[in-house]
């Protein structure tokens, strides 16, 4: 049983086994997981190179400025969209993307290296769970490598901390503020709106009112859930509360001039601007929050973090991500109870997940997402030198473009979405591609051995037989990687 639980631990809770890992943790798989529920003491070495949000946004600002200069000089056509930060396919957009691509490549390289090399894969999965829960996307050019910065600044340090801390860090991160447009959320009765209306002729695009995007998504996607008990008035009022939460443009500009912008952290770049804040008390979920500037928003977030709907929503999402698309309600209740009892202490919630017998059902319930599949493959086969551009291309071909979830709800987490014929086909292609790269080279890459090492007791007889009958090591490995045993966890 312990070998089986060890195999479940590395696959369901981690990014798959490395050679020898199942045996190594077989003594006490639960304890191996629990030991990972401690915050990182420092940023892992593989991630030292992840661009700061300042570097990412500074790079975007410079690229945008260059395009605007060219447009002004008549050397380039104006952007098709009124808002040049919105994704479109025109030339200006393309040239901005080209300029910022190396940054995203650097960031993805770090993400891959960390995921396949870490000794704490459960922690890594939790980090990635949070960065997908509080999703920001490079689909918005302005965000670009800020997705990785967000993960570094928000999801990673607070992965097993209090939910409220995560929620605040997320809601104040420059990438989130840009992605969900809170930098355009202006109190209609604020001095800033009055000023901007006065110059509307010169600056017709300047925002002069609410943008409720962030407020709505915090309620719907980050905390209560869509049926969590809020209405439109709550959204509107919460948006008012969040006015003034934005990016310190002056700091960014000054740092951009002397080149020190790359050093600017999320904290350096967040700024509450009273000038743009909607004055007055605002009622959210039946409670009036007095106008205390930034504090007003922090108090709403505190309420949301402790809301029973949030406990339920987060519990369900964790159970769905780690255990099953349709998890047992008894499991969800256990997580929800831990969330409430420990005031959103995520170490306790994930501890409850480890303790729950429902999480150890040997029957695989989840279909790996493309990136999980890729990481499990690279990790299991000990591949560290594959060109990151090709990995990014591959995982995009399989449907999960790096750093680019299709929307603020993140990448899909259910098999129905990923089990499309085209995606399944591309996984088969990728399995063969990788297998050809590693087979015929080393003795320890013989598919039967690999299957045993990476799946342990989870390797079914049918898959083992198919592998052993393969016509070449490459084909055997490809069958293993594409098999249901490997694709599901």
């Amino acid at each position, binding site marked *: 049983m312990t070998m089986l639980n060890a195999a479940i631990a590395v696959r369901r809770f981690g990014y798959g086994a490395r050679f020898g890992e199942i045996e190594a943790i077989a003594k006490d798989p639960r304890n191996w997981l629990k030991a990972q529920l401690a915050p990182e003491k420092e940023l892992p070495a593989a991630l030292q190179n992840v661009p700061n949000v300042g570097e990412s946004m500074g790079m975007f600002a410079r690229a945008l400025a260059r395009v605007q200069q060219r447009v002004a000089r008549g050397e380039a056509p104006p952007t098709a969209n009124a808002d040049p930060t919105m994704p479109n396919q025109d030339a200006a957009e393309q040239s901005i993307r080209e300029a910022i691509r190396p940054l995203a490549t650097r960031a993805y390289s770090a993400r891959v290296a960390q995921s396949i090399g870490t000794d704490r894969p459960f922690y890594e999965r939790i980090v990635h769970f949070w960065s997908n829960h509080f999703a920001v996307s490079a689909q918005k050019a302005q965000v670009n490598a800020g997705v990785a910065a967000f993960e570094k600044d928000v999801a990673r340090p607070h992965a097993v901390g209090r939910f409220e801390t995560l929620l605040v860090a997320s809601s104040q991160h420059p990438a989130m503020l840009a992605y969900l447009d809170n930098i355009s959320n202006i109190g209609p009765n604020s001095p800033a709106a009055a000023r901007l209306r006065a110059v509307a002729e010169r600056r017709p695009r300047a925002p002069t009112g609410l943008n409720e995007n962030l407020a709505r998504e915090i309620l719907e996607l980050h905390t209560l859930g869509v049926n969590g008990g809020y209405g439109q008035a709550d959204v509107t009022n919460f948006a008012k509360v969040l006015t003034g939460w934005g990016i310190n443009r002056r700091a960014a500009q000054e740092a951009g001039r002397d080149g020190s912008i790359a050093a600017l952290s999320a904290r350096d770049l967040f700024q509450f601007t009273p000038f743009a804040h909607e004055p007055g008390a605002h009622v959210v979920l039946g409670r009036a929050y007095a106008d205390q500037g930034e504090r007003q928003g922090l108090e709403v977030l505190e309420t949301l973090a402790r809301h029973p709907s949030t406990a339920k929503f987060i519990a369900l999402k964790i159970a769905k991500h780690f255990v099953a698309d349709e998890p047992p309600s008894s499991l969800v209740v256990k997580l929800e109870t831990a969330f409430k009892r420990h005031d959103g202490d995520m170490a306790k919630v994930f501890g409850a997940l480890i303790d729950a017998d429902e999480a150890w059902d040997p029957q695989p319930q989840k279909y790996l997402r493309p990136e999980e599949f890729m990481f499990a493959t690279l990790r299991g086969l000990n591949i560290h030198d594959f060109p990151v551009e090709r990995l990014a291309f591959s995982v995009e071909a399989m449907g999960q473009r790096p750093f680019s979830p299709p929307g603020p709800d993140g990448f899909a987490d259910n098999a129905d979405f990923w089990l499309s*014929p085209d995606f399944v*086909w591309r996984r088969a292609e990728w399995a063969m591609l990788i297998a050809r790269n590693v087979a015929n*080279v080393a003795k320890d890459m013989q598919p039967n051995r690999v299957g045993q090492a990476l799946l342990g007791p989870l390797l*079914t007889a049918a898959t083992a037989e198919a592998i052993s009958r393969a016509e*070449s090591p*490459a084909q055997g490995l490809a069958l293993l990687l594409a098999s249901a045993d490997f694709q599901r966890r």
Partner: protein
Amino acid sequence: MSFSRRSFLTLGGAAGALAAFPTFAWGAQTGPEARKLAVVILRGGLDGLQAVPAIGDPNWTAARKALAEPLPQIGDYLPINETFALDARLANLAALFKSGEALAVHATCSPYQRRSHFDGQNVLESGGVEPFGLNDGWINRALAAKWPQAERPLGIGIAPQIPLALRGPGNVTSWAPSRLPAPDEDFLRRLGNLYAATDRDLAAALKMAEEANDIAAGMDGMEGGGGGRRFEPLARAAAQFLTDPKGPQAAVLELSGFDSHTAQMTPAAGLGRSMRELDAGLAAFKDGMGAQWANTLVLVVTEFGRTVAPNGSGGTDHGTGGVAFVLGGAVKGGRVLADWPGLAPANLLDGRDLRPTTDLRSVLKGALAAHWALSPEALDRVVFPDSAKAAPMMGLLKA
């Protein structure tokens, strides 16, 4: 019979003589650099008796049973001589036999004779004696021995990464189309079977994808059904690399789908499809080499042959002795070279396999000796370590 036993072992000295000959001057490159090598590795174990049936062997029909005669829709065997023929799905290859630019060596095998694909391919590619005894490949060692000072890549693997045969001390590279390569039919069939047995959702998705891709292939104007779809462009690419003025000396190509455990007489699926792909690829390669074909040597090898008799599902299982092909403008072709063991039951290895009578290393050494004038010492000790007993086969190329 038109072959003579051991005849190829009596033509000693040709390698030394060849080194003194001026190189052909048809292509852009002259000197030793004009002499190109392409090696095609057929993965899965080509059934040598399907590709090159020994129809003149007195025991052919009795030994081969249901596989003795091709199905009508495949077409009659294409005769090479009184004893041997070619499968009709190798029509381009047959034309090269007719024009004297291709020969086959039959009843050959690497030193490995234990019927595992994984080990067999390792020995085939490494050029060693035991599986996993060497960490690099014979093609690389041959290149390094011939051009020890070269700074340009001497070899190229037409694959996502460098095949073992091409790994080693010499400077080599690899190339593959940048998009994800389409999985081969045999792999998809196996994966489909595995999914059918284990996972209904995955089985359904894969089946739908296959159907969609078949339609898409037709819309693209790509060749549908008959094969050549994935190998031919790679073969053309290999020719393009080799004919480049700064190109490498050797290219390695891989083709899988030869593990014909079932229904190998199906006209254009499974083995039939793989043979068609090989055939189309070889023709495309020759075409791509242009005038330099005259200086080019192509070696087609596989890890082992298969059982002589069919198994219970119309296919053949892993065997031992099989066939290798030697092609090129300089090849003394039109022949089948074999120390033919015969198909009488008593002559089969373990009562089931074509008995290997020619060490495949002899073929490879003979070809390299003639083509690149490698010294016997280099061939015996470096390129194929511990192979002194496998003497180079002489007379493969025109004198």
